[in-house]
């Protein structure tokens, strides 16, 4: 995160407002403070929408709070909407937070789900997939990571019914292109990318990358 703050002009920094004793958090927060970046606490932005052109990013603060809470369960979730397309991105959320979000009934049916907690076993529950019903699951995970992620059992759950499951350790960069109707395609690969999945409303006869622009 500190590399991002050093490399790009950043206007807003959003986090869950939980202090940590680590050097990395201190470094990041000092960069925010000294770099003129506007700090925003997710708790104050819960359920608010950030407009990105004709796309919308909804912020879901974690319903799990407390000093003894597992920090992973205080992850911020984001819902991205454009046209009929919807994606759900969770951070390191584990079962406790996922269950709490489900009980709040704020988790919708989505097209793309970014797997919680890098495809960990403790980041997947069957009720989560029954509610989200994703067509595509994307797992952000480092190649050869020492945690053994993604977990084999989690992979089996994500892949049920032949669902497309893409993972950055094996598939490389994963790029999702969405047009204003919500037609989307998912490309993966280190050499420009091949289409691995696509979908959207019934009108999506033409893949978004071939859409004629005025």
């Amino acid at each position, binding site marked *: 995160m500190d590399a991002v703050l050093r490399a790009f002009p950043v*206007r*807003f920094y*959003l986090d869950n*407002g939980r*202090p*940590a*004793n*680590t*050097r*990395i*958090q*201190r*470094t990041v*927060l*000092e960069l*925010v*403070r000294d770099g003129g970046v*506007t*700090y*925003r*606490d997710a708790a*104050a*932005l819960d359920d*608010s*929408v*950030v*407009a*990105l052109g004709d796309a919308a990013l909804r912020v879901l603060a974690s319903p799990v709070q407390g000093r003894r809470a597992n*920090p*992973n369960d205080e992850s911020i979730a984001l819902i991205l909407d454009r046209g009929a397309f919807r994606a759900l991105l969770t951070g390191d959320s584990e079962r406790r937070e996922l269950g709490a979000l489900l009980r709040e009934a704020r988790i919708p049916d989505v097209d793309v789900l970014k797997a919680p907690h890098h495809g960990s076993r403790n980041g997947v529950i069957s009720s989560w997939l029954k509610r989200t019903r994703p067509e595509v699951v994307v797992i952000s995970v480092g190649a050869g990571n*020492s*945690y053994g992620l993604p977990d084999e059992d989690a992979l089996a759950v994500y892949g049920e019914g032949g669902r497309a499951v893409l993972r950055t350790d094996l598939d490389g960069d994963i790029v999702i292109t969405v047009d204003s109707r919500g037609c989307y395609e998912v490309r993966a690969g280190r050499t420009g990318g091949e289409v691995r999945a696509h979908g959207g409303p019934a009108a999506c006869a033409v893949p978004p990358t071939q859409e004629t622009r005025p």
Partner: protein
Amino acid sequence: MTDRHEVWIVDRFEGEYAVVERALHETLNLPRALLPAGTREGDALRVTVSAGDDEVRLAIARDAQETKLRATEARRILGDLKKRDPGGKIEL
């Protein structure tokens, strides 16, 4: 043997392992069993590294004072930032 002292921070637990920050951008995955009983996330650990020709010995102790100092500083920086949070929606 020569001794060297380091301060490690317990970032989090992942299953049977603790993710410990040894330095900025350097973390170690240590089995929980190698840490003092009662170690919690956020704890500062005072580590003494005794290096000899044929062996290296590590002595790991919880450092309550260092933990408290770091927690106070973390709350202070975050508190200052929260005071500058303008509120309202994010408009890009």
